[in-house]
């Protein structure tokens, strides 16, 4: 705020200061915390966590921001309160000794009090003022101030005094959280929201199908942006966490690294490289189409790459999956033993959706996997409504993608209708969606698979038949028959048919080849005989030539012999002749 003043000040009004709660998730939703120096109303039914939320605000204020706080309780005894808080790991007694927190327990019992005329609540003011001043408190918690209405009769006085109390708290400059019981059709039973107008947070503990879900909603927050949805929250040994921490932003790193699915032919459909790392992949399909098998292939491949993989099984036990996968030549046991693959199996009905979410969160944080498989998400619907499951999955995917974890979800679709929409409505959230389905034709069922979408990569648009055999999964090449794509035994028949014709064809070809061979032999023979002929002719010609030569030689010889026989002049001549020549 103070960085660039002059100009900015004119353009935008001063943002209100906030007092961070330190509660994971809540600060994100409120964009920084509760309005500083103003009262905040926290309302909700019994047992929905109002007191805990306010105590966490105080205690975390002390521990994280070094802001002392006053706790004024109208309900529980101070000791009970300390015991309750201790279960969350907060030691109120020590904080009290360190003068970081001051707890004041206000006891009012109508039966002990007789009202005899005009009065005011100065006692409360003085006590609170004294408590605030004694430790220099910045935060105040009033739980549940509505009990005043039960303890005192004159409502007009209480209302006037409450109004005065809140103004007085503002003037004190403390940030106050005030809890109030939810009323019928109204936010609070006694209409406290009328007085606390700066920030109102509504908590709810909704039970549907015997499973409870805690929800938090910011009803109003004057002068500030805030998340307006209902956010599920949890109370566990670490206190309150509103989930998710990241849901308000769509900012995350993306990887362009591609990872194999473990099924080479499927990789080929995805441009030959597989899916992006950190993407979310949904495999949906009807029963028995091999969704789990595909997911297991993926997990197996991850383990082979020496990446850790976490498998959440909501339907089968790990042993069952391991046994079943052995039948398609995948031995998961080795990966489990080497610690690369971890199963986490639970019945969906074990606990509420939010607890599942937390369980997944925790496991992921502990194990730090690169690949997470959730098989199947469909079963979660049995414990929550579709929209709840969707909201849970949104947050889950968000979280996993933030951590750059590739996630495979399987979903069972209703076989009655081949809807191109999953029951959970998550299809729009995922990066890639594969659909496996039965193709029933010609008295048999076959498995067909296609890629409905795969963001950011070219992918095949074909419906591919895929087979599950002893050797594993494989996609069969597209087989076009006369009447379109053929699958199953029709494909096999066609394949055999084609093999047959191929054999016939090749036979025909070889016959022709032989013919040619023969022709060639004949030709060669002819050439040979011609050559023979030519040679004999040549020889003939040569023969006469040689004979001529010979004859000539012989004649010459004879002539010489004849002259030698004559002697004399001839002999001299003969001697002279060569010199002449």
């Amino acid at each position, binding site marked *: 705020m103070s960085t660039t003043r002059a100009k900015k000040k004119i353009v935008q009004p001063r943002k209100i200061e906030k007092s961070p709660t330190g509660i994971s998730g809540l600060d994100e939703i409120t964009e920084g915390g509760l309005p500083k120096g103003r009262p905040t109303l926290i309302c909700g039914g019994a047992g929905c966590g109002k007191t805990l939320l306010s105590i966490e605000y105080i205690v975390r204020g002390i521990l994280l921001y070094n802001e002392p706080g006053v706790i004024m309780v109208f309900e529980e005894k101070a000791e009970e309160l300390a015991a309750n808080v201790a279960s969350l790991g907060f030691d109120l007694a020590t904080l009290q000794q360190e003068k970081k927190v001051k707890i*004041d327990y*206000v*006891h*009012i019992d109508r039966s*002990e*009090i*007789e*009202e*005899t*005329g*005009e*009065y*005011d*609540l*100065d*006692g*409360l003011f*003085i*006590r609170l*003022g*004294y*408590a605030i001043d004694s430790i220099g408190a910045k935060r105040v918690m009033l739980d549940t101030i509505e009990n*005043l209405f039960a*303890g*005192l009769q004159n409502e007009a006085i209480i209302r006037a005094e409450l109004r005065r109390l809140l103004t007085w708290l503002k003037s004190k400059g403390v940030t106050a959280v005030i809890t109030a019981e939810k009323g019928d059709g109204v936010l609070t039973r006694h209409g406290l929201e009328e007085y606390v107008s700066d920030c109102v947070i509504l908590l709810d503990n909704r039970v549907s199908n015997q499973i409870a879900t805690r929800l938090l909603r910011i009803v109003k927050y004057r002068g500030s942006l805030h998340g307006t949805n209902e956010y599920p929250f949890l109370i566990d040994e670490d206190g309150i966490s509103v989930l998710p921490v990241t849901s308000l932003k769509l900012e995350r790193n993306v990887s362009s690294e591609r990872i194999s699915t473990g099924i080479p032919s499927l990789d080929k459909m995805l441009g030959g490289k597989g899916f992006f790392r950190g993407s979310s992949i949904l495999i949906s399909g009807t029963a028995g189409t091999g969704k789990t098998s595909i997911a297991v292939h993926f997990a197996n491949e991850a383990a082979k790459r020496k990446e850790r993989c976490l498998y959440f099984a909501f339907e089968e036990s790990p042993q069952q999956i391991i046994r079943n996968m052995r039948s398609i030549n995948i031995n998961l046991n080795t990966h489990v033993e080497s610690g690369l693959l971890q199963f986490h199996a639970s019945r969906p009905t074990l606990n509420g959706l939010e607890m599942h979410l937390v369980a997944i969160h925790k496991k992921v944080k502990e194990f730090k996997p690169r690949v997470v498989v959730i098989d199947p998400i469909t079963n979660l619907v049995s414990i929550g409504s579709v929209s709840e499951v969707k909201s849970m999955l949104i947050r889950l995917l968000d979280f996993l993608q933030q951590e750059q974890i590739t996630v495979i979800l399987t979903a069972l679709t209703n076989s009655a209708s081949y809807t191109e929409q999953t029951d959970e409505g998550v299809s729009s959230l995922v990066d890639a969606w594969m659909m496996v389905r039965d193709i029933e034709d010609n008295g048999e069922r076959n498995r067909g698979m296609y890629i409905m979408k795969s963001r950011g990569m070219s992918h095949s648009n074909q419906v591919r038949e895929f087979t599950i055999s002893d050797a594993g999964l494989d996609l069969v090449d597209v087989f076009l028959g006369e009447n379109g794509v053929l699958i199953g035994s029709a494909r096999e028949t066609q394949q055999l048919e084609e093999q047959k014709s191929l054999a016939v064809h090749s036979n025909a070809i070889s016959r022709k080849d032989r013919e040619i061979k023969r022709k060639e032999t004949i030709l060669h023979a002819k050439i040979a005989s011609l050559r023979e002929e030519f040679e004999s002719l040549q020889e003939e010609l040569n023969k006469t030539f040689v004979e001529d030569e010979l004859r000539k030689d012989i004649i010459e010889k004879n002539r010489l012999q004849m002259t030698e026989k004559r002697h004399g002049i001839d002999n001299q001549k003969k001697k002279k002749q060569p010199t002449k020549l």
Partner: protein
Amino acid sequence: MSKTNDKPERPGHEEPDHLKLRLFVTGASPNSVRAISNIKNICERHAQHKYSLEIIDIYQNAAIAEEEQLVALPLLIKKSPLPERRLIGDMSDNEKVLRGLGLI
């Protein structure tokens, strides 16, 4: 602490029905002033010489507010005779005060 002991007529003389009262007020606020004068009137009229009244201004001692569980003021506590009773307000409702103090 400023104790304004309103001089009981016979200090030390403890009769079984001796009223021991303690009134918490906040300075000189209208309610406080009214409460003091009202309770004095009532006591003088109905329990003359049989009561002691201690008036405590909690502005002078804020710590006592927590000790005594003070919320609504003015507050009159009847310490004895037992049972202890707490009356709040400016003591303008005569009948309620008398009943609270066990005087009628």
